[in-house]
C-alpha cells in the first residue's frame, strides 16, 4: 500500500498506512481546536467515541529559543525567557538569571531575593488561575474563567506596577531585580492575598464541589506514579500522583528554605488530584507571599558589584526552579566568550505532554479533552 493516494499530511499518512480495515476514524484534533490551547495537534484514532490511539504532533510554535541563546549575549537573551512560558514568565526569568548568577558567582541582595519570591509566587497564582478557567472552559463551563480573570487582573495590576508589563515580564536582572517595590505595592499585595483567601471558598462552591465536574475529573486519566516517573513528569502532575517533589524544597534555591509552606500532594492519581494540587498550591502561594512580605528586609535590590557585561568563566551550570507546570531547568555551557556555547531549556510541559499518548488510550474523546486540560500545557513552552 503506497502512501501516495492517501489524504492528509505525513503524520496522518503514518496513521492511515498502519490502519487495519476495521473502519476506525482518524481525527485531527488541532492545530486549531478550541481545547488544545494554542497550536498543539493531536492525531486521534477513534473507534466510535473511544480513542484507540493518540499521538501529539508538536513543533507548530517552534521559535528556536535554544539556538537564539547561542548567538545572543547574556543580556540580550533575557527577554526571550518571558516568551517561553507566557503564563509563568517570571519562573523562566528566574531559571535563566539564576543559572548565569551561579556560573558567574554573583551575590544577590536579600531584598532582591524576597522580591523575586513575591513576584514569582504572584505570577504562579496568575498562571494557575488561567489554567483553572481554561480547564473549566474545556469541560464546558464558561463562567469560571471570567471570575478567574477578575482575580488575575488584580495581580497583574500589581505586577505591572513594578515590572511595567502584564504578561511577558523581563524583570529579574543579573544580581537583583530591575525596580524596587514600594509601599503601594506592598499594601496592594496584602490586599490581593486577602482577596484570594476570600475567593477560594467561592471557587470551591462553584466548581470543586460541583457534582458534574467531579464526575468529569474523578478517575479520569489515572496516572500511576511509576508511569509519571518514567516520563519525567514534574510539578502538579507528579504531585497529583502522590510524589512529594517540589524543586523549592528538593533543591532549595533563593530564600525558600526560610519560608514556611506545604507541598500539596494527592494520591488519587486522577485529573481531580491534579486539579486539587493546583488549587491547594494557590493557597500555599498566598501563604508564601504573606510571609515574604512580612520578612522583607531593607537594602539594595541590585548587587553593587553586578557586572555590566557578562563574560562568565569556562564551565557549565544547571539551575532549576519550580514553575507552575513543574521543574524548569536551564543548562548553560560557557566557553568564556560573551555568548553561551550551548543553552538547554528543560521545559516541564514537554515531559507532561509526552504522557498524553499513553494516558489517552482507551478513553472517550471528552475524557481526552479533560486529561489534556488537567496536564496544564502551555504550547510555546513545549516547542520552545
Amino acid at each position, binding site marked *: 500500500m503506497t502512501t501516495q493516494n492517501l489524504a492528509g499530511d505525513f503524520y496522518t499518512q503514518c496513521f492511515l498506512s498502519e490502519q487495519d480495515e476495521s473502519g476506525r*476514524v482518524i*481525527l485531527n484534533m488541532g492545530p486549531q*481546536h*478550541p*481545547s488544545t490551547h494554542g497550536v498543539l495537534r493531536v492525531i486521534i484514532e477513534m473507534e466510535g*467515541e473511544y480513542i484507540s490511539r493518540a499521538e501529539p504532533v508538536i513543533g507548530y510554535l517552534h521559535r528556536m529559543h535554544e539556538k537564539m541563546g547561542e548567538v545572543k549575549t547574556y543580556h540580550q537573551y533575557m527577554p526571550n525567557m518571558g516568551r517561553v512560558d507566557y503564563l509563568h514568565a517570571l519562573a523562566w526569568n528566574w531559571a535563566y538569571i539564576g543559572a548565569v548568577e551561579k556560573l558567574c558567582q554573583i551575590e544577590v541582595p536579600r531584598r532582591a531575593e524576597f522580591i523575586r519570591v513575591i513576584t514569582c509566587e504572584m505570577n504562579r497564582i496568575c498562571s494557575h488561575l488561567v489554567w483553572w478557567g481554561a480547564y*473549566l*472552559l*474545556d*469541560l*464546558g*463551563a*464558561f*463562567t469560571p474563567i*471570567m*471570575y478567574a480573570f*477578575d482575580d488575575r487582573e488584580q495581580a497583574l495590576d500589581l505586577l505591572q506596577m513594578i515590572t511595567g508589563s502584564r504578561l511577558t515580564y523581563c524583570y529579574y536582572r543579573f544580581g537583583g531585580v530591575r525596580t524596587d517595590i514600594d509601599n503601594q505595592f506592598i499594601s496592594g499585595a496584602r490586599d490581593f492575598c486577602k482577596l484570594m483567601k476570600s475567593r477560594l471558598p467561592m471557587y470551591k462552591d*462553584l*466548581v470543586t464541589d*460541583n457534582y*458534574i*465536574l467531579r*464526575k*468529569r475529573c474523578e478517575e479520569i486519566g489515572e496516572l500511576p506514579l511509576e508511569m509519571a516517573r518514567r516520563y519525567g513528569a514534574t510539578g502538579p502532575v507528579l504531585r497529583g500522583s502522590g510524589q512529594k517533589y517540589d524543586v523549592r524544597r528538593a533543591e532549595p534555591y533563593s530564600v525558600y528554605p526560610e519560608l514556611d509552606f506545604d507541598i500539596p500532594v494527592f494520591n488519587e492519581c486522577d485529573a481531580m488530584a491534579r486539579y486539587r494540587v493546583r488549587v491547594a498550591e494557590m493557597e500555599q502561594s498566598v501563604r508564601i507571599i504573606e510571609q515574604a512580605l512580612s520578612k522583607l528586609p531593607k537594602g539594595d535590590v541590585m548587587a553593587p558589584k553586578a557586572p555590566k557585561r557578562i563574560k562568565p568563566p569556562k564551565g557549565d551550570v544547571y539551575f532549576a526552579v519550580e514553575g507552575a507546570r513543574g521543574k524548569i531547568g536551564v543548562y548553560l555551557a560557557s566557553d568564556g566568550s560573551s555568548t553561551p556555547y550551548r543553552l538547554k531549556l528543560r521545559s516541564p510541559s514537554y515531559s507532561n505532554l509526552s504522557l498524553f499518548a499513553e494516558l489517552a488510550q482507551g478513553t*472517550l*474523546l*471528552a*475524557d481526552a*479533552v479533560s486529561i489534556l486540560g488537567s496536564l496544564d500545557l502551555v504550547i510555546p513552552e513545549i516547542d520552545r
Partner: protein
Amino acid sequence: MMNILELIPAELIRILIGLVAILVFIALNALILVYVERKVAGFIQRRPGPYEVGPWGILQTLVDAVKLMGKQLFSPTGGDRLLFWAAPLLAFAPLPLLFLSIPVGKNLVAYDANLGLILILAFSGLNVLALCLAGWGSYNKWSLLGAVRSVSQAVAYEIPLLLTVLAVTLMTGTLQLSAIVESQGAWPWQWNWLVQPAGFVIFVICALAETNRAPFDLPEAESELTAGFHTEYSGMGFGLFFLAEYTAMVVVSSMCTILFLGGWKGPGPEILGVVWFFAKVYALVILMMWMRWTFPRVRFDQLLNISWRWLIPLSLFNLLYVALVVKI
C-alpha cells in the same frame, strides 16, 4: 367577494391568522431571547453584555441577524449539498406547527386540537432528523460525531419525557392542552407540579436534553467537537439552527408551563392569563440560561446513564404513583 370568504371555513382563517402571528412571534422571540441570553451571561460573568447598538444594546441581535443574512453561504466540498441545505430548513420548518396548538390564554389558541400533545411531541421529534442530516451532509468528522451524539441523546431522553407526559395525561384524562390547563387551579398549590414533583423535575431535565442546552449540549460541545453538527454552516444556515434552538426552548418551556405550572391560570382576572403564561415560560427559559452559564458539560456516557439508570426508572415510578393517586 363575501361569498368567497364565506366559502373558506372559519377554522382555516383562524389557523392562517395564527400561523402569521406565530411566525412573527418566532422571529421576535429569537431576537429577544438571544439578547436576554447574552445579558444574563454578561451579568453572571460580571460584565455588561451587549451595550453598543441601541440603548442598552437592545438592537444588537437585530444587527447580528442582518450580518448573518449578509454572509456568504458556503457548502463544504465533498458534502451532500442537498442534505446539507435541507437540514437547517428541516430544523426550522416544524417550529410554527409546534406553536399551533399551544394555548397562550383562554381561547387564545390557533388550533385547539384534541390531540395537541401528540402533535407537539411528534413534530419536536423532527429536530433530531435535522441534526442528523446536518452532520451527515457536512462531510466533516466533527459534525458526524455531533450527529451521532444527537440521535442517541434524543432517543434516550424521549422515553422519560413521554413517560412523564403520560403521567400528566393519566391524571387529566385528556390530550387536549387547553383541557389540561383547565384541570388545574389558579393558585400555585393547585398546579400539577405539586402533585407530581418528581415528574416536574424529570420533565425539566429532559427538556434541557431535548433542546441540547448546557449542561447537555453534547451535539455541539464546542470544546470537544469544535461546534458539533453546525461546524460547517455559515450565514443563515447557522442562523436557522440558532433560531430553531431558541424557539425550541420556548416550546419546551410552554409545554412545561401547560403540563405542570397551570398554563395561563393564575391569581387575578382572566384577562391577565396571557401575562401569566408568558411570565411562567420566560421564567423557565431564564432558569435554563442560568444553568447553562453555571455548569460544566456532562460526559456522553454519563448523559445516557442519567437517562437510562435514573430518569426512566424514576418516571416509571412516577407513573405508578400517579396511577395509584388517580385510583384512590
